[in-house]
């Protein structure tokens, strides 16, 4: 790691940077723009929604609004983990053509808030099917680890907004 590697809460002089909330899923570390994070809360039982795709676990009451909860492990086809008291839900907001929507993502744990230097963000390589990495905004090294920066608008926006007919789409795509 070079000398101007992003240090926690430190900014490189004259360089554009933004803060990212990092969390872990299995062995991987992901990051989302801190400005999109509404709340971090512990796991509590959700209410199931009929006919929902498998990675949408259900809905929760977040201070009066009904918020869908997405299991990122399932979204990324990782091994399922048990939901325990240390399981964390990060509530983020997605901005799409339909307006702002809030939803929660279930992750293994929240790690840190780090400053990310925009210049250091590397594009994600194409892996397998085209479009499979669309929701990855880039990769960035943070303290010897690679953090996958997520574009949550793409990750969930495409999922939840076209929800009513997503079943058909996946069916036709398959």
């Amino acid at each position: 790691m070079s000398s101007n590697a992003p240090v926690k809460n430190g900014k490189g002089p004259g360089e554009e940077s933004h803060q990212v909330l990092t969390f872990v899923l299995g062995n991987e570390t992901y990051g989302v723009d801190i400005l999109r994070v509404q709340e971090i809360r512990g796991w509590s039982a959700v209410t199931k929604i009929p006919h929902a795709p498998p990675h949408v676990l259900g809905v929760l009451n977040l201070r009066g609004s009904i918020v869908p909860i997405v299991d990122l492990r399932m979204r990324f086809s990782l091994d399922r983990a048990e939901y325990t008291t240390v399981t964390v839900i990060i509530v983020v907001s997605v901005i799409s053509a339909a307006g702002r929507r809030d939803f929660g993502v279930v992750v293994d744990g929240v790690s840190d808030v780090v400053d990310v230097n925009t210049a250091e963000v590397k594009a994600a390589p194409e892996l397998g099917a085209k479009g499979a990495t669309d929701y990855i905004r880039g990769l960035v090294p943070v303290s010897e680890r690679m953090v996958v920066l997520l574009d949550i608008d793409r990750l969930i926006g495409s999922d939840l907004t076209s929800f009513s007919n997503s079943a058909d789409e996946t069916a036709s795509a398959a």
Partner: protein
Amino acid sequence: MTIDLTQFHDAFFEESFEALDSMETALLKLDIGAPDKELINTIFRVAHSIKGGSATFGFSDIASFTHSLETMLDELRSGGMQVTLAMSDLLLKSVDVMRAMLRAVQQKQPINSQRVSDLQFDLELMIAQKNSAPAAASVPPPAAPGPVAAAPAAVQAPVAMVSRRWEILFRPYPELFARGNDPLRMMRELAGLGELESNADVSALPAFADLEPQSCYLAWNLVLTGDVAESAIRQVFEWAEGDCDLQIELADGGPQAASPATIEDSTSEAVAVTSASAVGSPIAEEPAATAPAAVASVPAPPVVAAPVAPGPAAPPVAVAPQKADAVATVADSGSIRVSVEKIDELMNTVGELVITQAMLSQLGSKLEGPTAEKLRGGLAQLERNMRELQESVMRVRMLPINVVFSRFPRMVRDLAQRLGKHVELKLTGEQTELDKTVLEKIGDPLVHLVRNSIDHGIESPDKRAAAGKPASGTVHLDACHRGGNIAVEVSDDGGGLDKDRILAKARDRGLIGPNDVLTDEQVYDLIFLPGFSTAEKTTDVSGRGVGMDVVRRNIKELGGKIELRSDYGKGSKTIITLPLTLAIVDGQSVSVGSETYIVPLISIVESMQLKAADVSRLSGRGEVFSFRGFYLPIVRLYEIFGVEPHTKVLDEGLVVVAEGEGHQRIGLFVDDLLGQQQVVIKSLEANYGHVEGVSGATILGDGSVALILDIPGLIRAMSMRAAA
């Protein structure tokens, strides 16, 4: 010191439209021949305030038109003209024209000047006819616009041309300016009526140091000479009414009886006699000249500057005159305008509070110890207060249904006239209160139903006579509370529904088979099908067959039900049942496995436990059970929603008989019934999306989310599934 008047436009338009509504109502109540004085005054006030407002804002077309209208109304008021049918028609048309003009100005579009000038001509013609016919030698009506010219027109008829001397004592209260009144303007108007002498009474003027620039300390003794009626003078002071002591007295004992009061002896220290044309400046200067220890330029503001001062004092100036008029009829209703968003916000917050309170109560009940007892007492108190708060906030959104009903008298009148029928409209329960959102959406369906009643229901006078009914038919609109819901009924004593014709038409169109036997209810349901009309010919009023299906859809969207009853030859009745509000629903919670669902009470017919013997299988397609003589399909909720239930055996769970659109019933199989409660409806679509068979979600006492079932949607989903 000019104010940007455009900031007051919105208030002006809003109030003008409201005022026009009340004018219309008053016009419709006006009896031909023996009009109620108060009603005419109401109508006059509306015209007057719109004229004043539009002149202030420079909408000269409106001002000019309302001026002609006002001239005629003034004739009515003074008894110079009688109310005739033609006149009330003309006045109603004027209301329409004014509304159109205001709307055009509001949207910055050109006014349809042809229509306006035609009507204005008619109005002036009517005034002119009056003037030429009974009172032969009267002054021609002044057609020139402007507020002052209106007054002489009012006077000419009953009184001969005599120059009279009026002595007016005008003693404004200190807060006169704050109400947006300006004595200077009043005096200018008076000066326009005749020769005006003005003596200011400065006895109440305090020492300069104590002078409050926003208050009025002056009083005036005015002498007005000329051919002026008392009413014309009173009109000048109309807006200041209640903000001043006013005595008007005829000094030389003219033909009209003078007011009983006498003028107080003038105690004025300074008397300034001014000529009529020069009232303006001397008044402004007087305090300066005569006030003890006054500095010439300083005290001037009390009279001139205060009413036009910008900043916080400014809004009342432009708005108050109209407000004063509108309020005059309701006599201080003491209401304020609040935007709906603010109320919605409040509702949301209160909803949150209710949930939080429920959570606390649950926690509190689990605690033990001496303080826990006290805590529970406090929580119980909190719960009571919360319920009251919730009800109060809900009431804020409620408006009397009269808001919707008030449009019908006019509509019924016009429609009956056009169709050559005699129709009487009866309105009851107008004070029944409904949520504003419901109210906004109920208007169109009701209009449609009333139209149907008049067009198809009520027969022509000869037909009615032949049937032995009174020539005039009745359409009755009623609203009342009925078991947590609002029932709105539209009934008529017309021909009623012809069942045979409906059936024949339905068979014609292949909607039902030739040998189908239908109950009355099912027959009437046919009317709600899209494109169904039994009218022999379509009129421009109704009969195209679009409508009843739209009516039903609108009512359904509001979570309501619509029902038709009819007695052939005697009339028909439509009953609409609506929830009090869209924000809350009465629900029955049911459990399926670990999940809780809410079934709206309005959809539930009955709940029961089935015996295995009651159930029969239908050729492998599904299960049915017998309920009050009908076979209903059993819908297993766990199957549709894909959850793991506690039991799949029919006689171990319960069946909720629920009703969807048009008496379509199903037996919903659930694990258990939990309890009835009012739930606050939350949108599932805001963050997620629409789910088939679910109309929304709610938050339960423990903070968890429960889905609210949409029974008609479930039935639809089920039949689609069956078709697939």
